[in-house]
């Protein structure tokens, strides 16, 4: 019974949930294909025509990003314990940090898969030949993972659902003016 009480106090169920969310996030990040934009209208777009910076030459390579996002906060939380050591506080701080990272990972992965934009360096990654990308496949796929989308970009669903008649069918039926319920308007005297 004491063990159960301690498990509740240390957020055991939340730890399990966090690891499930983290697992789902990693699966979504690795497994889901990003949303593929029609390239045609964007071929002359200067916003996706910037040069490609390889990961190793970027200001903040992926390994450093992981260290800054995970290992640095971990070290800082542990070192904060020097101020007032408490295992319960350490447990909840770590749980908060890891659950926050897990949820962000999952949300961002889902957004990228649903409406990922073309990265600013997409055309340099793609190496377009006869309307098809001939660049390194994983770099091209990565080039489609800029989130979120802009308002003017097309509907992320298949073209069939973009037909006006089908869009109309998805909305509540139109009613004639005479059939609409009377809504008294506020009048300023």
């Amino acid at each position, binding site marked *: 019974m004491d063990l159960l009480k301690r498990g509740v106090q240390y*957020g055991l169920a939340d730890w399990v949930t966090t690891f499930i969310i983290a697992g789902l996030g990693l699966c979504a990040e690795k497994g889901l294909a990003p949303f593929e934009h029609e390239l045609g209208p964007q071929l002359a777009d200067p916003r996706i025509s910037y040069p490609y910076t390889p990961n190793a030459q970027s200001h*903040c390579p992926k390994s450093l990003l992981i260290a800054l996002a995970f290992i640095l906060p971990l070290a800082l939380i542990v070192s904060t314990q020097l101020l007032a050591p408490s295992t319960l506080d350490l447990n909840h701080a770590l749980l908060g940090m890891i659950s*926050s990272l897990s949820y962000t990972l999952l949300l961002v992965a889902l957004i990228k898969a649903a409406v990922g934009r073309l990265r600013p360096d997409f055309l340099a990654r793609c190496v377009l030949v006869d309307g098809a990308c001939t660049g390194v496949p994983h770099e091209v796929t990565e080039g489609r993972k800029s989130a979120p989308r802009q308002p003017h970009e097309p509907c992320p669903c298949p073209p069939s659902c973009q037909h006006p008649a089908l869009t109309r069918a998805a909305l509540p039926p139109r009613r004639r003016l005479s059939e609409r319920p009377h809504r008294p308007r506020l009048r300023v005297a």
Partner: protein
Amino acid sequence: MSFYWAAKLLHAPRLRHSGSLWRATLVAAPCVLALMIGLSRIADYWHHWEDVTVGSFLGTATAYTMYRLRFPPIAEGAEPLAALQAAPWALKSRSGDRLYDGEYPV
């Protein structure tokens, strides 16, 4: 990290009479680091500025939600809620007033 440090530094009894600028700087440091990383992503042409802006809002909202699931509001305390539920008499306002109306343990 900022929320966690903000609460810890605000409620640390040993720091009650020390200055607050260094504490504010320390709390802002993780945010500045995150901003620098975001800007580097734009400089490397990996992200559009809109992505970084929305991403930072998303990250902050998630982090604050997760923080508040386990800790009280920053101005009210730095102990985890689980500890306060076990010992609510430990929760005090900034002026040191008792916030718990129940009976103290004997």
